[in-house]
Each structure stands twice: as C-alpha cells, then as structure tokens.
C-alpha cells in the first residue's frame, strides 16, 4: 500500500505576517493586508489595492540571510524566507541528512525585477549591473537560487499552472512520496507583485478598485497579493523512523481541467466539483466529515458563481462553513495554494474557521453564504482547500487532523 503523506513543517510570508504565527495572529484579529503599493512602479499605485509584503527587497534580503549577495529577486527572497521557516519548524537543520526533493511553483519567475531592467537588457547600447538579472527571466531561477542557498541537491522541479501552481506542487510532491521516489519533499510556491501581472489582470477587467468581496453579490474582481509558503511533506515511514512531529496529513488531492474557456470556469463549476469530489474520495472521507472549506474565492464574477455552484452540488444542503482568505492576503497566484494549505493546517491545529471579510450580501445565484465571523473552538478535522486557475487548471487538497 502506498505510504501516507504527512505535513511536518510549514513556513510562510505574506502581507499579513512575516511567518506562520504572524499570519495566524492577523487572521484571528481580522487584519487585512490590503492597501496601496509602496514598491511597485505603476500608474495604479493609488488606484488598485494590493496585498504587499511591507519590506523592501533590500530588507527581505537581510531577513533571508543573503544581504549583499547579487542576483536574488524579490520572488526568490520571499521564497527563501518561507522555506527557511518551514525547515526550522520541521526540525531540519541539515537538508543533506535525508535526500530531500524541492517542488516549487511560480507564475512569472523574476519578472518583479526583470521588468524594471528589461529594456536595458535588450538594448545593445546599454551595459551594467542589470545584466545579472538575465538569468532571472524564467521560473526556474527562483527555485534553483533557493535550492542552492539551503542546499537541496536532489529532485527539483518548478510548476506553473497559473493560480493552482503551488497546489499542484504539493500534489506532485505527495505523489513522489507515494511512488517511493523520495521520503521527504518541500513543496510550495512564491510570488512577488509585478506590473506585468497587475496590468494583465486589470486588462481582463478582473481587478476590483475596492478591497475584494468574495461570494458577495456586489463583488467586482480580485486584488493581487504577494507572498510565499512551503510545506514539508514526509512519508509515514520516515516520520516513524525519525519520530517527527506531525502537524497534519495531506490525505487527498485531485487535479482536473475545465476544458471550457482559456480564462473562465464553467458556469456550473464542473471542474471545481470534480476536483473536490475526487480529492475527498481519495482521502477516504465523506462530505459529512468536512468541517471547513478554504475556497479559492477570488471575488471575480465568474469564479465565485462556479465555485459556489460546485459546493452546492457536492454538499447539497449541508455545505460546511467556508471562507475565502483572499481579502487578507490578496490573490497570491502561484503561492496561493500553499498559503491556503497552511491556513487549512492552522484551522485544524487551532480549531478555527477564518472569516470571509467584506461580505454583506448573498449572491443571487447561490443559496449559500460564507462564514463572516471567526469561529473559535470549532471542531475542524478535515479541510478542503481549493485553487483554480487560467487554462481551466483546478486543484483541490484535503488536509486532515493527524490521528496517529
């Protein structure tokens, strides 16, 4: 029988916290990270809210322990900070002691830095410091920089399936463990705000000028965010051998495709429904066992209809408490799946359901509404976490309380 996959460490940085504890504190005190950018050079500086990590890239390089070393983009630094926390939390001081894979996720690689020097790079008349950013144009740069800095030398990969990228990274890592190819793998994703993605989503008329309102009748789009999150996955046998402290189990997952439209989900949420259903089936649990759904909930017109319909189809009249945490963190694209997987772990660890901020009016298409208050002392054993993206890429994860 394939091995079970356990989560033994988590690390993150977002607009609402520099680490996991900071994120939990902001979630519980209902502190949103949305505001206007201080770092991005854009005409939308004071028009489109974003959830920005409050440090400069220079400050991040100090936090990541690589100050003064060339070539680290903001994407890489955010990732490095989160990876270091995940390793520390899992009690891993030497990654070489056990062959450790690294599966990263990114949507635009080092674009945050390259977009500022791109026209110098392509201009033969110009030369200078910016040339060091040439290698950061692709998505593998951040992965390899992080790997080389912390010492990962084993299996390495970068996944890019738009907004479901890091959920797919977790899934791939879990499958490598189940197939017996590795016993330990660090999975997650990193995303920095860029003019490129801000203008991309804005050109699609997908960005709200106000803080996003997931599952609200008046919702009008998403807000972008930045951050990074990683989870340490270990096989059951390694956990037993090392007596590792398990914080939760990755008990189910599924990846489906909408095959409907390049940027829109199907109106009845076919892909979302199939992803949640299949992930739950894999976990061996039923709809009655799920106490919380951390929805994708971007607050775009089409996502929330589609995802809401899928929830109603799967759970019928017994939809468990659900919320989108995007009003806290913004939509962090490649990092979102891993950030929300950690929030799911926190919900189980601390018996919480996080509130869906900015909700006032139910959607006319749905009979369900999100959780608007922090639920404390709520018995959360199994959580579904959803990530859906462009290209019809859907991913659902089931995270379960560790019962031994």
């Amino acid at each position: 029988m394939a091995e079970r996959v356990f989560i033994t460490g988590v690390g993150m940085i977002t607009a609402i916290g520099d680490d996991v504890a900071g994120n939990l504190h902001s979630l519980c005190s209902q502190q949103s990270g949305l505001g206007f950018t201080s770092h991005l050079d854009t005409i939308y500086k004071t028009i489109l809210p974003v959830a920005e990590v409050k440090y400069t890239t220079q400050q991040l390089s100090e936090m990541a322990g690589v100050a003064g070393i060339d070539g680290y983009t903001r994407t890489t630094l955010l990732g490095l900070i989160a990876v270091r926390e995940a390793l520390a939390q899992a009690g891993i001081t030497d990654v070489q002691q056990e062959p450790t894979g690294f599966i990263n996720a990114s949507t635009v690689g080092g674009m945050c830095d390259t977009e500022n020097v791109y026209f110098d790079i392509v201009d033969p008349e110009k030369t200078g410091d910016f040339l060091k950013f040439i290698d950061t144009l692709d998505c593998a740069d951040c992965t390899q920089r992080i790997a080389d800095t912390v010492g990962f030398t084993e299996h390495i990969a970068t996944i890019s399936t738009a907004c479901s990228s890091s959920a797919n990274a977790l899934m791939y890592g879990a499958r490598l463990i189940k197939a017996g190819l590795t016993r330990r793998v660090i999975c997650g994703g990193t995303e920095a705000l860029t003019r490129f993605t801000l203008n991309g989503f804005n050109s699609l008329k997908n960005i709200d000028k106000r803080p996003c309102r997931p599952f609200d009748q008046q919702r009008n789009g998403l807000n972008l965010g930045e951050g990074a999150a990683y989870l340490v996955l270990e096989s059951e046998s390694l956990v037993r051998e090392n007596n590792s402290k398990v914080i939760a189990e990755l008990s189910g997952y599924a990846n489906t495709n909408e095959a409907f439209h390049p940027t829109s989900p199907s109106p009845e949420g076919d892909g979302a429904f199939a992803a949640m259903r299949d992930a739950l089936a894999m976990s061996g649990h039923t709809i009655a066992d799920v106490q919380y759904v951390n929805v994708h909930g971007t607050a775009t017109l089409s996502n929330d209809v589609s995802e809401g319909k899928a929830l109603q189809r799967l759970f019928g009249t017994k939809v468990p408490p659900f919320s989108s945490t995007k009003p806290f963190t913004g939509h962090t694209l490649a990092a979102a799946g891993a950030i929300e997987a950690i929030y799911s772990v926190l919900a189980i660890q601390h018996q919480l359901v996080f509130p869906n901020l900015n909700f006032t009016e139910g959607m006319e298409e749905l009979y369900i509404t999100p959780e608007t208050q922090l639920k404390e002392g709520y018995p959360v054993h199994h959580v579904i976490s959803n990530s859906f993206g462009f290209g019809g890429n859907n991913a659902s994860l089931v995270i379960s309380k560790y019962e031994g």
Partner: protein
Amino acid sequence: MKGKYYIQGMAAISPQHTFEGDLSVQPMVISNGNMLSCVEPDYKAFIPGNSLRRMSRILKMGLTTALRCLQDSGIETPGAIVTGTGKGSLQDTEKFIKEIRDYKETALNPTPFIQSTYNAVNGLIALQQKCTQYNNTFVHRGFSFENALLDSMLLLHEGTANVLAGAFEEITAEHFYIKSRIGQWKSEHISNDTLYKHFSPGTISGEGAAFFILGPSPTTNTYAELAGLKMLYKPSPEKLAASLQTFISHEEIDMVLTGRNADTNYDQYYQVVDQQLSGIPQLPFKHLCGEYDTAGAFALWLGAQLLKTQQLPAQWFPMLQQPPAKLRNILIYNNFFGEQHVFMLLKGI
C-alpha cells in the same frame, strides 16, 4: 518505481522536416547563423482559421504537435495532459512587456497576457480535445520536459490509461540577443551542419515541439519503451559518472544519443560519458535542433523514431562512421548549460 512505459504515438515540429513524411528521404535543413528556427507546417489542417488568427506562434506549434501526436496514436481524448516548457510563449511575454510601456499601462489587450501564461498550451489542448482530467505544466529549464515525463510515468503507475506528454519551446530574435549577453551562443557565426567543427565557448540556439502518447502496454503502433529516466541537478563529474554506472548497470547499450553541442564551457560532462562508454557509438543531435530547455524531447522523439524504423538517416548524421551493429537499446544523455543533467533509456520493441 516499477512499471512499463511505452510510446504509442508521437509528433515533432523542429528545425528539421520532422512533422510528416518519410524521414529517410528528408534532407538535413542547413541554417546559416546561430539561431535555428522550426520548419513550420500548414496549421490550417489542424486549427480552424478564426482560432488560428488569435494564436501566437508557440500556441500554434504546441497545439498542432499535440493534435498530430493524438492522431498518430489513434487516441482522441488522453487520460491526462502533462507538458514542459522552459520559457513558454516568449513572443507574448515580450509583446505584453512592450505594450505596458508603450500604452503607459492603459487600454491593454489582454490576449498576450493570457497566452504568456505557461499553461496556456495545455489549457488549449484540453479545451480542444475536451480532456477534463489531470493537467500539469512544468517550467524548469532542462528538467521541464523530463519532469513532465516523470509525472506521466507516475500517472500510468497510478492507473491512468494513457498520457499525452510533451514539450514546446520557441526562440525569438530578442531572446537570442538577451542570452548572447551571457555568452550562451558562439561568437563566431556558423551553420548547423558544421557545429562540431567549432569547438569553442557557447553553442547554437534552437526550438521545437514534441509530443508523445505514453501507455502502460505495447500496441502495434508502439515506437519504443521508455525504460529509464534519471535527472541530476548540478552534479559533480564524479557523481555524474557514478549515476551513469548505476543507470545502465544491467543494460547493454547499442548507441548513445548525446546532447553534445560543441560548447567548451560544459564539454567536461560529455567527456565523462565518453570515458564510461568508450567503444559505444555516439550520435549527436544538437546540430539538428539546436540548444533549448526542452531539447531532450527532440532526442526522445529521434531515438524512438530510430528504434521503430531501424534506420539511421545518413544525410542527417554525416559524422557517423560506423553504424551500430544493432539498434535495440539507446541511451540519451543531455545537459542544459551544465545545470540539469538527464539520462533516458529507450528500448526497441
């Protein structure tokens, strides 16, 4: 990981005439200059005209190769779609960056942004073939295609009936220039047929798309068995040698398809293979496709083609003095600028 993995169908668009027809009669396409571009087919046979107009080059190339591969295998809707690309749609990325600047972030057309996302080709294939199952895209330089292959093998192992696995890459004049600034290409201008005579820093650039249908058991259409895959990240020459030894320990290798590209910066790794496998014929392929993140997919296509036809097109390989005595087990070794190293083992049926 136990299991058998067979190539049941395939297709490739490359700088050579690989898309259709009898390979043995196709002449080698010779390009002057260090940037090889694909010989592109007429896409109208695969994609309706109104869709075609909206699609950028790599989307057309990727989608068409995937559709041709499905045709070749006789499968309409695969059980999963997994791809690798190091750079995705460069043309769209460049276009959107420029439009942001030129139009000062206002009134932008979203199409290049949508098409610049790395999973756009996968989404299109799924949409076109109504494939609602597993769908994934890897974007890791010289491991992009190889992770897609590994993912496909995992899927077959887990019970998926068949997987469409592929890779796509394009080079643009602008990106060629960018990478020339960090010395990836030779400073002297050469033509691809003379690549191995120019042993100097840098190589020639290329591009291409290749797709495969992988299944768990052989059929009458099977090209070859993918019998092994190993990725090594930044290994030392010693580690590379030891891994190669383990990889082929019980196998008799008839021929090596080598990614050797006349780049003196990284030739030491190819020398490791020379030493370990001296006496075994080696066939280079980069003079045909150029260097790019997913050139390994071209090598797999070429190896599977050679195994099925049991023929080496002599006009493509003028350097080959002594053809191998038999063609049953082919080892592919490739590395991407010394960082990502890959071994693949292909077996004839």
